[in-house]
């Protein structure tokens, strides 16, 4: 197995790597490689830096002068302000949305990962009729467009009264369902690659499936669980589609929704748009910088989802 398959379990890809790992000849990059990479890095960073700088500049300055002019005199304290963040958090309701985003994302990560872990264990280490067929179904559903679910679920939630009584419940369950195929797929591939001897010896010692799963497999699967958890959390945090259809605006709106509305209604209020945009990015950026390894694994494995 190479690491080329869609949603390749990164762990197995890595396990396959050492054989081919080579000594890296240090710094054979010529001037072309160096300057091309420098240009790309600058291009990739500048848009974000512009938003970050602008979000701390006074309103009249943001609206009349380019953000790069602030870099000419960065020590001039008069141009910097936290006012934009205050405005966007309180007057524009982003503080409420920030909490909503957390309220949506945390359960929507925990529920599917636990359920998927149980299923993944069965697919990896138990024999039962339908095992192969059901897993092929899971593989097939990996790339299914989420759009298939919305019309029937809107009707179903309406009929059951979920959309009125507890709109968050509908979103949690939807995200859990949508995330399930990928979670089962990643975790089953990881659990399946664990050593058979460990599991056999636990079985000889009299452990049942539940015991093996809970005391042996779950602790051993931490890397895969972490990678998937990070992927799913960020996916839900960054999602607009599900939030737009099932939560919409008002009291329950999440950050992405609120920002998209802000863009629509405050077209030229760049001091609010930049600070609002940066607010939605804070949590993902913290995750990115603190858990980069799991983060890259999770996001690469999950890129098929949509």
């Amino acid at each position, binding site marked *: 197995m*190479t*690491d*080329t398959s869609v949603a390749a379990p990164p762990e197995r890809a890595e396990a396959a*790597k050492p054989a*081919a790992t*080579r000594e*890296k000849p*240090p*710094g054979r990059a010529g001037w072309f*490689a160096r300057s091309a*990479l420098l240009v*790309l890095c600058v291009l990739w960073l500048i848009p*974000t830096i512009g938003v970050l700088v*602008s979000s701390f500049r006074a309103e009249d300055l943001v609206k*009349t002068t380019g953000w*790069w002019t602030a870099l000419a005199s960065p020590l001039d304290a008069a141009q910097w302000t936290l006012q934009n963040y205050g405005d966007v958090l309180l007057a524009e309701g982003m503080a409420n949305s920030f*909490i*909503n985003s957390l*309220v949506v994302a945390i*359960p929507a990560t925990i529920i599917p990962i*636990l359920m998927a872990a*149980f*299923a993944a*264990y*069965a697919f990896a280490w138990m024999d*039962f009729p339908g095992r192969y067929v059901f897993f092929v179904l*899971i*593989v*097939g*559903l*990996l790339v299914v*467009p989420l*759009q*298939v679910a*919305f*019309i*029937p*679920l809107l009707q179903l939630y309406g009929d059951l009264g979920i959309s009125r009584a507890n709109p968050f*419940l509908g979103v949690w*369950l939807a995200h859990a*369902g949508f995330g399930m*195929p990928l979670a089962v797929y990643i975790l089953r591939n990881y659990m399946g690659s664990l050593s058979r001897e460990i599991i056999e010896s636990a079985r000889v010692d009299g452990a049942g*499936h*539940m015991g093996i*799963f809970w005391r042996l497999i779950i602790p051993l699967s931490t890397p895969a669980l972490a990678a998937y958890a990070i992927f799913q959390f960020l996916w839900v945090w*960054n*999602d607009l*589609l599900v939030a*737009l259809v099932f939560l919409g605006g008002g009291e329950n709106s999440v950050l*992405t929704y609120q920002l*998209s509305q802000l*863009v629509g209604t405050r077209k030229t209020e*760049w001091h609010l*748009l930049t600070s609002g945009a940066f607010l*939605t990015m804070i949590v993902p950026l913290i995750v990115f910088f603190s858990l980069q390894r799991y983060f*890259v694994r999770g996001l*690469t494995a999950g*890129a*098929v989802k*949509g």
Partner: protein
Amino acid sequence: MIYKILNALIVVFVGVVGVPVLYFALNALVNRIPGRLRTWLRPYVFVGPALAMVGVFLVYPAVHTVILSFRDRFGQEWVGFSNYVDVATDASMREVVFNNILWIVFVPTLTVAIGLAVAVLADRLKTTAERVVKSVIFLPMAISFVGASTIWLFVYAYRPSGEQIGLLNAVWTLFGGEQQAWTQLSAGNLNDFLLMVIMIWLQAGFAMVLLSAAIKNVPVETLEAARIDGCNEWQIFWQVIVPQVRATILVVLTTVTIFVLKIFDVVYVMTGGNFRTDIVANRFITELLSARNFGAAAVIVVALLMVTVPVMVLNIRRFREEEATR
């Protein structure tokens, strides 16, 4: 507010404690069943709940959506193929499909080209420098499509007069151009391409990570052999590296293509589908939420589904091959 947080805390509690308890309870129940039935039932305790979720939230809705595509806008009466006819003959739909074709042609190829370039070039840097470059290119993957769109809206920002605050207009006027409302310029589909830039900016990191892993797996002997034979670096890239990572390139191309089909956020935020930039996934949202035409929305979903089916089949076939060689 308090109610909402409490609500979430209860769910987190139910999720962390309740879900395992559910499984343990089901398992204990199965333990009381005698003999062979017990062994037969136990695996379904493990897979049952997850399969039920997949059934309720993906399989049932998919089937139901196909049915709805043959019903009227409220999902009530059978109307045969008339939704399909309406969507196919809608003049504005032609433009939407054309735009989507542009996206599918340009975004995956440019994403792969940039990802491959970074992967190959950064491989020649020292380890720390390589890591920094890769982090910079990967960073946008963390950002939501809405956030990224806002970032780029600011790059494209336009003021009718006075100093330009958008980077693109500032550079453009610096070189003697007239300031432009870039996202509204539909001539030559220019604004479509400006929106595609956002998608490429977001996805290049993904392509880079997969391609970089593949490149590091290229046996160094093949590179050295080519070098001894007098190939220059450019020839080595095209004739030694690219053929050996072709499988990965294809996987990244299909993955990004499927992704491009499904993403509506960029168009939704940047133009709302105006100025001739609409694409299929955004049209779905318009039909579903604004027009409230379930029939037409369902037809669009069926079309999306049809395009993804070959990839599904491909994934399943590859999975079966891997299983056979396990």
